[in-house]
Structure formats: structure tokens, C-alpha cells
């Protein structure tokens, strides 16, 4: 009843092309942002800010990155974890050698380095496709992880082989408290999600989708496969790189290269498939599903008060989580974002579906 767009007329092209053409969506989004920026930092305690929201946001950013590459440009990749590592280690190396640099600049630098590395490892995509490409990108993952473990320069010759996030200083703002970290992560993620949304709606996004749907045909209508694919790799890796840097600086603090191991790459791929390929919203939903659901299952199991053993709860967590993945795929193979869209469509017509 409340969710209805009758009476909202679009009289200009700008209106028609808006991200949220329906007014209620706009208000909901603004309300959500207000809650996220104001209410959550005030009301949330350490546990929620530090171990739920912050990692969720950072993973969402990485998922957006991979979604650009896999969901929009159609290049399946298992290198996301490696590119996150590149971002984290670049930012660390910049800040440890030139400490006076603003953190935001360092983030951009980390993203750019990751983008360059990503484009380099994207070259085989010009020749190799589909599952073959997916497996081939593991070469990037393993090579990057190996390099950071192997060459002590990357860790500034730390004997433990780990990097420790240097203090964050932005325009005199020292980001230390958990709410400050959360707000910084939220700001970065919001800005970058907005950019991503506009990128995929514009001509670049369209050329990516053309390549995804059929690259030979796209080439014929004048889209350069090389530039387009490599750009997708670069932009995607930029997002992953920034996510990796945030992961190191806002979440973990001290990082060994294994923190960006193959499991991370797999998890991010799972996120976008479950959330919805080719959907920014889906990246958030998928991150929530993959990161938070197991935790909630675990908490629920512990909180039942049945005195179940830790091992039993953990195994049940695996089983329930796996079943839910299969269940959701059977219900809606195109991901949670599609489910959300269907719900919205239904809501618009409710209670008179015809």
C-alpha cells in the first residue's frame, strides 16, 4: 500500500535515469544511510561495530569489486584475495616509508597498485574463458601470496613476516575507536558503491555487459575486447585492493599474508554468486549471507541453552549453512538480489496483483 509509484511522473531524462526512480526507495535509502552513519555508531557496542559491521562492510566492498569483474564483465576470477593482499601491502609500504601521507591518498595508492597488478594478471583472459579462466586466476592468488611471504622487503624486514597497521591519521583525525573505524569504512564503502553503481550503468558498464554476454558479437559492434576486459580487471582489483587495505588497517591490525589466502578468494566468489551476479545490492546481500550467517547460526546454537558441545554446534553450522546455500539456489538461482527484486515487484502491485 505504502510502496506505490503511481503519481510519480518522470518529466525529464534525468528523472528517468535516476538510480532510485521510485521516491520510496530514495527515502528508504536515505533513512538507511542515516541509520548507518548516525544511529549505528551511537547505539552499537564494540561487538557489533568491530566484529560484525566493519568486516561485513569491507567484504561487501571486495564483493562489489569481484562483481564488477565477474558479474558485469563475465570474467570468473579466483584472485580477489590476492588483489586484496596487494592493496594492503602497498598501503602499508607507502605509510611505513612515507608516514606523513594522508590515509585516503594511501588508500588510493593501494588501489592503483592493485589495479596495475590486476590488469597484468588479466591478460590471459583475452585468450582463456569460463572455468578455465577461473582456475587460471588461481595462479595470481598463489603467486601473490608466495611473493609476500617470500620477499622480506614487502613486510619491511619484519622478522615475524607480518605487517602491522601503522596509526591512521587523516587531516588530524586519528582513527582509533571502533566507531571511528566503522564510520571510516562506511564512508569509503558508500562512496565507492555509488561510483560502482554509476560505472555499471554508464557506457563502460554496458560495454562490460556486452563482452560478458557474447564477446565476439561485442567486438563486431566496435567494443575493444582487450581494453574492456583489462579495464574490468583493473577496476575490480582497485576495489579489492582498497578493501584489502581497509581489512588490514581497520579490522585486523596485524596481518600475515595468509589472511588473504585462497579461502578469502573463494568466499568472495561465493558472496557474489549467492548475492546475485551483476548486482551491487547483491554484493552486500551476499557478504551478509556468507560472513554473518555462519556466525548467527553459531550464536543461535550456543544460545539454545541445550548444553550442546562446541564441536556439534560447529558441525551443525556447516550442515545448515550448506543446506541454506542449496535451498536458496533452488528457490532463486539468480541470487538474493533477484529475490529482493521480485519481492519489490510484488509489493508494488500488492494487494491487487493484476
Amino acid at each position, binding site marked *: 500500500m505504502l510502496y506505490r509509484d503511481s503519481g510519480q511522473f518522470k518529466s525529464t531524462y534525468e528523472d528517468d535515469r535516476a538510480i532510485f526512480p521510485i521516491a520510496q526507495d530514495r527515502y528508504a535509502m536515505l533513512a538507511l544511510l542515516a541509520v548507518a552513519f548516525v544511529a549505528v555508531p551511537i547505539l552499537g557496542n564494540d561487538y557489533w561495530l568491530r566484529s560484525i559491521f566493519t568486516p561485513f562492510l569491507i567484504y561487501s566492498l571486495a564483493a562489489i569489486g569481484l562483481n564488477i569483474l565477474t558479474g558485469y564483465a563475465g570474467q570468473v576470477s579466483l584472485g580477489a584475495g590476492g588483489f586484496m593482499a596487494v592493496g594492503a601491502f602497498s598501503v602499508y609500504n607507502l605509510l611505513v616509508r612515507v608516514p606523513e601521507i594522508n590515509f585516503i591518498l594511501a588508500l588510493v595508492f593501494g588501489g592503483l597498485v592493485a589495479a596495475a597488478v590486476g590488469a597484468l594478471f588479466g591478460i590471459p583472459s583475452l585468450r582463456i574463458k569460463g572455468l578455465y579462466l577461473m582456475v*587460471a586466476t588461481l*595462479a595470481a592468488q598463489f*603467486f601473490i601470496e*608466495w611473493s609476500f611471504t617470500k620477499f622480506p622487503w614487502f613486510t619491511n624486514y619484519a622478522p615475524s613476516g607480518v605487517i602491522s597497521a601503522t596509526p591512521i591519521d587523516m587531516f588530524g583525525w586519528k582513527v582509533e575507536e571502533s566507531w571511528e573505524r566503522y564510520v571510516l569504512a562506511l564512508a569509503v564503502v558508500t562512496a565507492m558503491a555509488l561510483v560502482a553503481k554509476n560505472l555499471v550503468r554508464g557506457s563502460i558498464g554496458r560495454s562490460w555487459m556486452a563482452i560478458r554476454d557474447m564477446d565476439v558479437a561485442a567486438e563486431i559492434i566496435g567494443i575493444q575486447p582487450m581494453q574492456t576486459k583489462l579495464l574490468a580487471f583493473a577496476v575490480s582489483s582497485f576495489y579489492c585492493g582498497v578493501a584489502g587495505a581497509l581489512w588490514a588497517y581497520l579490522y585486523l591490525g596485524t596481518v600475515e599474508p595468509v589472511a588473504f589466502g*585462497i579461502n578469502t578468494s573463494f568466499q568472495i566468489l561465493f558472496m557474489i*554468486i549467492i548475492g546475485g551476479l551483476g548486482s551491487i545490492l547483491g554484493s552486500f546481500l551476499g557478504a551478509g549471507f556468507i560472513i554473518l550467517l555462519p556466525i548467527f547460526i553459531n550464536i543461535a546454537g550456543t544460545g539454545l541453552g541445550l548444553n550442546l558441545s562446541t564441536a556439534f554446534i560447529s*558441525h551443525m553450522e556447516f550442515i545448515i549453512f550448506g*543446506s541454506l546455500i*542449496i535451498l536458496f539456489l533452488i528457490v532463486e*538461482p539468480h541470487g538474493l538480489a533477484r529475490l529482493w527484486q521480485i519481492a519489490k515487484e510484488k509489493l508494488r502491485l500488492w494487494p491487487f496483483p493484476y
Partner: protein
Amino acid sequence: MSQAAWRNISIGVSGFIVLGLGALVIANPGKIFFSWTFFFEVLIGGLLAGTLYSLVALGFVLIFKASGVFNFAQGAMTLFAALSLVRLIEITNSILLSMALTVVIMMALAYVIERLVLRPLVNQDVIIMFMATIGMTFLIDGFGQLVWGSDVYPLNLGIPQDPFEVQGVLLNQFDLVAGAVAALLVAVLAVFFQKTRIGRALRAVADDNQAALSVGIPLRHIWFIVWTVSGLVALVAGIMWGTKSGVQFSLALIALKALPVLILGGLTSIPGAIIGGLIVGAGEKLAEVFIGPLFGGAIENWFAYVLALLFLLFRPQGLFGEKIIERV
């Protein structure tokens, strides 16, 4: 870009890498130890290790061929099969009985998978099916640990493991047994596919499942059979790897070793899985021993993928994969 241009670029890149590595080796004479005996030792060791990769890769290929599913759960199935076997041996004290029971368990698993996962998701995208098998991985891992436990269980089926020397080249009985098992398995699968009625049906489904369906081949039975066979291959792989390091959760990770083999050999070819395994095994061991010291070692993991990548530059569908023909 044209095919010819690609060929030239690929040859150029590979040539550059080979020459570069050669130059590195020659420029660092002190760091590399080389003798022909040792070379053959590493080569044979690598080939035999490769057969163990092939065993895992075979399971993937069977399923991909018949149902177009890239089965991420192959590692989990390997673990589950080996775990069932080793725990059943503890209970029943009989290896043969336990084997038989494990076969039944793997059949039941295949049935459940076909009924609850494959059937509802028939004709979905490759990536969706892939994700479904990831769900299965969690499910099987959790279920396996719940029923059988998460400890490490030694597995000793009496396979001899002593080293011996032939012409100064060190060999290990276990590796030879593993190679023989792999060869036997491939032979059995070849006969099964080529000579039996079910095998013919399987090949028909692999070629075109719509056409197979229309001539009356029951797709569901075929899937059940393929997943069962793949479960049995997983059991064999689980036994070999479990003998090496004990049956424990890490068995589920051996799938990673099979991936470069798969793309190198082609996702749809059984001989490809074997040849790919041999190439990857020999290639990565030779690289680790003779090139690795220049970089400080442990290059095996990524080297296998780079090797596969180089082959893919020439043949994007793998050595024996079906040629991809694209029409606009």
C-alpha cells in the same frame, strides 16, 4: 586478434619464459645441483606424484563430462569416503566389509545428491551448479565430521612403502603402487565407457543430453551412476592420499592440487586428466628442485598453475578438451 597472431604471441611468451629461466640457471651455477641420475630421480618422482593428482582430477572429469557440473565437492567426497572407510575398519575390523559398506555409502550419497540438488537445478548455468556443489561441500564436510569425528585417523591397508634403488635412482614402492592403481582405474573406466551399455549411454549423455533424452536414455539414472562412479574414484584417491598423511580434514584440500591438472588436460577428457597429471607432477617437481632454489623455493603451488596457463595460451580448452566453437 587472429589465431595466427595468438599463436605467435603465445610462442613468444613461452619462449621468453623458458629462455629467461635457462639464463637464470646458467648464471647461478653454484646454487643448482645437477646430475642426470638426480634429474631422472626427480622426473620419476614427479610423474608418480602426478598420478596421484590425476586420481583426484578423474572424479572431476567424470562428472563434468556427464552433467556439465564443475563439482567443487570432489574434495569433500574424497574426505568423506576415506573417513567412512577408516572408521568402518575400526568398527568392523574387516577391510573388505568396510570397503563394501563405503561403496554403499557413496551410492547413497550420489542418490541424495541427484534427488535433492541436481534434479531441482537441472539446466541451470554452470556457475549456479558450481555454487550448488559448494553448498554440498559444506554439507558433506559438516556431516562427515559429525558422524565420523574430526581427528586424524591412520590408514594402513598394507601397501608397502619402502624405498629401493634401481641404477642409482631412488624409488618408493608406495609411489609405484599409486601409479599402478591409477593406470588400473583408467583401464577399468575405459572399458566401462567403451564396452558396456551404460558406458555408451554415458557417452551419449556427455555428447548431447537433450538428444540422449529423446532416444530414451534415462538421464536421472545416468547422473546417479556417474556420481556413484565419481564417488568410487574419490574413495580410491582418498585411500592413496590417506595412506600418505593419515585420514583427516586436509584431504578435502587436495582438490586444489587437481585443478591445474584439470585445465591443462581439459575438463572433459579422461586421458587428459592422466596426461595432465603427469605433466603437472613432473613439471612442478623439476621446477621446484632445479629452478626453485633461485627464488628460495616453495614455488610448486603457483608453478603448477603457471604451467597450466602456458598450455592454455596455445589451447584455451586444455590439451584434450573439446574445441570451443563460437558462433555469433
